[in-house]
């Protein structure tokens, strides 16, 4: 009774769109787009959109914000909203580079320009709008992977074009290009290497836990307790035994294992990765419908055939979900390796925190976040691909 007249007043407005439009207006009105600093450490002064760039780019930016806002507000198709929000993000990415060049032009060489709250809010709002559109479109897994790759290409194109070169975080990168590549390799090695080892050890261990009931409880409890030890402590606790081992065993020393550095970080990440892999392997194997496993035996399959041609393939999507959890978790945890000299993007984060240099923090944090996000999307898509078609609607 109360609802119907209100519907007439707002005929075809999208609920989320109203929030988005209000958010956009508030951001434009109250939040500064950029911040300018005389050097990398001092507090900066904020700059509004009007002062942050030449009129040309500003018109383009405002236009794209306007189009996206209207697309969000009206009940447009999901595809339309996706295109409008992604276009707005692209414009925003271009403008932030242009604006940085505009602000530091003629200033001291150590002057820095970086995006401020206004930029991040706009970015967040458009990302929300794109997420909403994608959620509504429910794209196929292959398309999701394609979108991530496309975003990666766009990112690479921006980096290569030099548009962002005057952004403070890129200035920071320039000073450390060599160490950035090294820490990036180290980070990937820690995250993926430990995951690989954990899968290698964890899947057979999970199978063992499934087959031998007596092993299951103890193994899972030990791994559970291991997870409760905080990461920095586990990293630290491995230092002493490893340095002892490397002094005792020359072979270990020869392959670069020592008390500090990557080895304890690698091993700690490996231990953290084990639980999700083992637990998901057990869950996946246990979740196979009883009559499927019964049918496999009834067909005359041996224990081994049943495991490899029926049980493991059916459990695989669940195991892959475990690997997804581990990968995203490892990419984040690998930052902590820096605390014990293990390298990785954490080096920049913690140095940046120590020097209160936000740009340096960003240099470490942005790649970590991007990597974790891309890994999550791609792994989720792979899990969906691996799930046999029709299983959700059919027999499970």
């Amino acid at each position, binding site marked *: 009774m109360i609802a119907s007249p209100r519907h007439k007043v707002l005929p075809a407005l999208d609920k989320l769109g109203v929030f988005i439009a209000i958010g956009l207006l508030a951001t434009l009105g109250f939040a500064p787009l950029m911040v300018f600093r005389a050097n990398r450490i001092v507090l900066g002064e904020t700059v509004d959109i009007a002062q942050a760039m030449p009129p040309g780019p500003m018109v383009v930016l405002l236009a794209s914000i306007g189009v996206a806002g209207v697309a969000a507000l009206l009940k447009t198709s999901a595809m339309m909203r996706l295109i409008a929000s992604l276009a707005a993000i692209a414009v925003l990415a271009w403008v932030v580079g242009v604006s940085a060049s505009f602000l530091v032009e003629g200033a001291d060489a150590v002057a820095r320009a970086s995006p401020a709250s206004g930029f991040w809010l706009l970015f967040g709002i458009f990302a929300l709008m794109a997420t909403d559109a994608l959620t509504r479109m429910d794209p196929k897994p292959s398309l999701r992977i394609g979108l991530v790759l496309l975003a990666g290409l766009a990112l690479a194109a921006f980096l290569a074009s030099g548009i962002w070169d005057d952004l403070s975080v890129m200035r920071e990168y320039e000073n450390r290009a060599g160490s950035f590549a090294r820490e990036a390799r180290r980070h990937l090695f820690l995250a993926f290497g430990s995951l690989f080892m954990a899968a290698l050890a964890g899947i057979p261990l999970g199978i063992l836990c499934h087959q031998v009931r007596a092993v299951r409880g103890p193994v899972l409890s030990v791994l559970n307790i291991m997870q409760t030890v905080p990461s920095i402590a586990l990293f630290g606790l491995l230092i002493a035994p490893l340095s002892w081992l490397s002094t005792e065993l020359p072979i270990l020393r020869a392959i670069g294992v020592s008390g500090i550095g990557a080895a304890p970080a690698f091993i700690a990440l490996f231990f953290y990765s084990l639980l999700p892999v083992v637990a998901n392997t057990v869950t996946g194997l246990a979740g196979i419908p009883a009559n*499927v496993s019964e*049918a496999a035996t*009834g*067909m005359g399959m041996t224990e081994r055939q049943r495991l490899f041609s029926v049980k493991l*393939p059916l459990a695989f999507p669940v195991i892959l979900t475990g690997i997804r959890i581990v990968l995203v978790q490892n990419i984040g945890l690998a930052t902590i390796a820096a605390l014990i000299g293990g390298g990785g993007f954490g080096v920049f984060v913690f140095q940046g925190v120590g020097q209160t240099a936000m740009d340096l923090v960003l240099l470490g944090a942005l790649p970590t976040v991007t990597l974790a996000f891309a890994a999550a999307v791609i792994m989720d898509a792979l899990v969906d691909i691996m799930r*046999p078609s*029709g299983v959700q*609607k059919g*027999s499970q």
Partner: protein
Amino acid sequence: MIDIEHITKRYGEEAVVDDVSMTVERGKVAVIVGTSGSGKTTLLRMVNRLVEPSEGRILIDGKDTHEIPGHLLRRQIGYAIQGHGLFPHRTVAENIATVPKLAGWEKRRIDDRVDELMTLFQLEPSQYRDRHPGELSGGQQQRVGVARALAAEPDVLLMDEPFGALDPIIRAKAQDDLLEIQRRFETTVLLVTHDMDEAMRLGDQIAVMAEGKIVQYADPATLLVKPASEFVDNLVGTADRPFRLLSLRKVGDIVEPGSSEGEPVQPATSLREAYANMLWQGRDTLPVVDDQGNALGRVRMDAISPWAARPA
């Protein structure tokens, strides 16, 4: 074909199957009926050694099933279960090909066999071969399950409540299909069910099981007219008994010369159905015609009634 000799299965002290002996003849359908917990499924699973008996032995074609390893034995015996147990990650064709592949058939022969079975079970191969079980209807899944059980041309087919998950109309169709295919391949079938109607419909012989023992093992007519105990009597249903008796006979058995008005019936129609048609049409006689509609004679209600009566 299947000789079960003094078979017993104990879990701890309790005998789930207690000294059971029965024989299923080649090319026949034997049905084990019983309530849940009667030991019928355990008995069935001992035939392909999914359960190892505590005592006794089972011979198939005169050979003790213990003389070959369990998994090899199972490859020679078809096995279909309730809820079909299809492998959800494999296509229909791959599911059906499971045992032939395990048995090492060559690809050509497997493909031919899969197509043959799919056609037989009314699943157009070109359309369904590459679908996954999750994309099929319940009735189709069940047919694939039976096709898979028959893929390696087994002489013996074991079925555990194979139609339990189907709704009544699809179930009746599935039962007819099974009988047709069973006759075509002359497969020996041992089937477990809790549904007496299904047992009557499918079984050449019916074994009634209770508390681990076979209470009576006989053909359907004997079961109806000479129940061995009150338990069997209750199970076959006092009120339905005359009609069940009628359903065991065909119009062809009592057709006589002459003509009649009314909707014709065929020789293969059961007396039960013919009787029901008469009642419905309000007639005492119905014409009998063959497939082509040629008149064969007629059937009288008076001639049907005696078949529903208890034999003297």
